[in-house]
């Protein structure tokens, strides 16, 4: 289906999310919509899918005006969207999710629906069990369910909003294969992303948005430097990591055994040096998180010892010590779920600063916390004000806030997915901060599902696979391919 968006306007309060945006997508094409966080991509596609009502502008499908005002209108017109956070019903079964919202008679013909579902999934080599509860599925599987559901509704234009965040490499290649197949059938696909590589790999053409405007359209292949300069208005280069390792050991792990009831992780021996960056690679839930939690003092090891560098007396055992002692030993932990574990949704940036400040009296010194919060906002380039609540910040700004709240002098920083969901600019900025800390002697342990990130910034890599842990490997002798094989369990 040929899709044309003409002169779309939408503002939320004072923010002009879409300012005279036009986009044209041919049938049979996979069209990329590229831009950093907050560029207005999601708003535009939500307008096309009826989820948001536009202020002004025209939507043409196959040249005809389509009066899309609600998602129901969009589905009737053949436009379906996969939202960034899967919009499904976790406690229900896959089949219930598949059927929910479909037109039909009063009663549900479970057998026919299940038959249709299986036919569609096998067409795309998706493996989904109709009776499984959706809450047990991975993000990638939930995407597959949504795609199949939308296709069963007869969708001719499929919109995907940041679909490659949080899915595994194999799920990504299955997704891309499915999208290519759909395009070959003459359906049009709109692929919203901030990841250049994904767009370059999949799309036929790309439109770049910045600050609510369309900056330009290009056909793929296109030099990525050009796309980057379109996205940001200037060229960006990833910071390179200088050699910062020193001999002093800040963290020593001995015969560590961890368990969360489902998985057991064993690490025999690991020495982490001052200024060193260690990447923890592996599929999500392979034990990296348990390891980080144990180093942070949040998870009690079942056996073994974590030894940290304490002020005068060198390495000292932390066995049985409370979390507070880990903090005093200079350990900082930034969890992946920034809003649930890292920051407090309803508290403002200033409140967070006040919480971090060591208590000197029962009252909060409002003036000094506000000044500190303002300083943090300035130095860490947070798009928000002192009285902005954590929940209102975008993902990138939440991560900047988390970094700003870390104590200035640390021996060890532990991070889960430090740049997940962040655009390129924020990613680069975050790593610049981290590298600056390394140069000051801080060691960093980070888990990431982005192999390029691991290879680029780590000095050494440890691979986790279903609780199995590899010996540390020097990054200089490692490529993303061998790393991928190791994640599959080959070591």
């Amino acid at each position, binding site marked *: 289906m040929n899709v044309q968006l003409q002169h779309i306007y939408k503002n*939320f309060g004072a923010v002009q999310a879409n300012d005279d945006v036009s986009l044209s997508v041919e049938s049979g094409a996979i069209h990329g919509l590229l831009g950093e966080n907050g560029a207005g991509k999601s708003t535009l596609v939500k307008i096309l*899918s009826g*989820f*948001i*009502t536009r202020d002004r502008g025209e939507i043409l499908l196959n040249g005809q005006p389509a009066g899309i005002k*609600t*998602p*129901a209108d969009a*589905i*009737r017109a053949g436009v379906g*969207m996969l*939202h960034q956070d899967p*919009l*499904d*019903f*976790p*406690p*229900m079964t896959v089949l*219930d999710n598949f*059927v*929910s*919202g*479909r037109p*039909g*008679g*009063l*009663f*549900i013909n479970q057998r026919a629906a299940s038959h249709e579902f299986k036919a569609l999934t096998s067409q795309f080599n998706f493996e989904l069990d109709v009776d499984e*509860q959706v809450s047990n599925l991975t993000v990638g599987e939930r995407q597959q369910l949504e795609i199949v559901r939308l296709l069963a509704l007869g969708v001719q234009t499929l919109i995907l909003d940041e679909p490659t965040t949080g899915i595994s490499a194999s799920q990504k290649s299955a997704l891309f294969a499915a999208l290519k197949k759909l395009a070959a059938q003459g359906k049009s696909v709109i692929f919203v992303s901030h990841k250049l590589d994904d767009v370059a790999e999949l799309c036929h053409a790309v439109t770049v948005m910045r600050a609510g405007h369309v900056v330009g359209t290009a056909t793929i292949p296109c030099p990525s430097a050009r796309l980057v300069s379109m996205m940001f208005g200037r060229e960006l280069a990833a910071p390179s990591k200088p050699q910062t390792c020193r001999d002093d050991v800040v963290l020593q792990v001995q015969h560590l055994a961890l368990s969360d009831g489902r998985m057991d992780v064993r690490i025999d021996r690991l020495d982490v040096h001052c200024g060193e960056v260690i990447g923890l690679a592996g599929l999500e839930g392979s034990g990296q998180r348990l390891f980080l939690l144990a180093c942070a003092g949040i998870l009690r090891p079942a056996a073994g010892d974590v030894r940290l560098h304490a002020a005068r007396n060198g390495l000292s055992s932390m066995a049985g010590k409370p979390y507070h002692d880990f903090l005093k030993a200079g350990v900082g932990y930034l969890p992946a779920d920034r809003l649930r574990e890292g920051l407090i949704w309803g508290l403002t940036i200033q409140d967070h600063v006040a919480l971090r400040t060591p208590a000197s009296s029962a009252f909060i010194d409002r003036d000094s916390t506000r000044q500190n919060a303002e300083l943090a906002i300035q130095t860490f380039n947070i798009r928000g004000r002192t009285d902005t609540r954590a929940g209102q910040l975008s993902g990138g700004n939440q991560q900047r806030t988390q970094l700003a709240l870390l104590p200035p002098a640390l021996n060890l920083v532990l991070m889960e997915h430090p740049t997940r969901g962040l655009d390129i600019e924020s990613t680069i900025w975050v790593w610049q901060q981290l590298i600056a800390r390394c140069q000051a002697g801080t060691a960093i342990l980070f888990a990431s599902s982005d192999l390029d990130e691991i290879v680029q910034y780590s000095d050494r890599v440890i691979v986790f696979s279903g609780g199995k842990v590899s010996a540390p490997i020097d990054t200089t002798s490692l490529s993303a391919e061998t790393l991928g094989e190791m994640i599959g369990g080959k070591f």
Partner: protein
Amino acid sequence: MDFNQLIVILATAIATATPLVFASIGETITERAGVINLSAEGTILLSAMTGFAAAYATNNVLAGFLAAAIVGALIALIVAVGAITLKQSQIAIGFVLAMLCGDLSSFLGNPIVLVPGPTVPSLRIPILQDIPVLGPLLFQSDALVYASYLLMALTWVYFYRTRNGLLLRSIGEQPAAAFARGSNVVRMRYFYALLGGALMGIAGAAFSLDFKAGWSHRHTAGYGWIALAIVIFGGWNPLRAALGSYLFGILQSLASVAQSSIQNVPTQVFSVAPFVLMILVLVLTSGEWLDRLLAYLPAAWRRPITRAIHAPPPAALGKAFEQD
């Protein structure tokens, strides 16, 4: 106690639980759509009063039920406007209404206190009533009781076998996702809130026109709160909510039997005991220790049993749906 006596006690328990079946299923429907109608206590009181007054004035029991259903729906409408359209706290609105309507029922119902009025006539179902055990247990009652059986069955089928029932569960779970699938979340929430309110109103009239016939101050005090608890006990499943209602009915029957056989204990103890026991049952069936107990089951059984016992509330319960 011989067998026949036991049957009589159980039959009484089932019959007297009927208003709670209506109330808890009504609230289950409302909450499945994502709206909490916390006014149950006030709704039942006010609709019991109006139902009795209307039946008394017209000498027609059906008119009484109709009036009660309308009152229940109107109170639910206030909750719905506040919760869905004005997006205010559903807890606050419901709580205030529970207090307000309770007092209103005493104030407005003053003239009809302890006057005799019409009641639902008994109706035995031919053939079925002669089945041993089941007949006297279930089919020697009145039309209202049979209607409650029908309500249970219909609600269950609607919830778990029909397209609209699936959508109903969807809007309480993830309204944004239901909206993305083309449903009109606001209109559906209004509809189910009013429907649930009407059923709760019928529960009120079921007291004043049938199982606790007549009207007095605070005539049905406590039943609204226990209905809300039963919805949680029932895990937002209509059959389990009915089961919870019957359990409460049995506890009440036992209390009245105990009262007649044990002297020297203040009667208040027996009238309060079922409420206390019910709370105890709620704690026992939803506690974390149950999970630990389940962990000892063989793996093959654990999953279906855990799934049956674990009934998380609808994820969007009590939350307003923000479009855009």
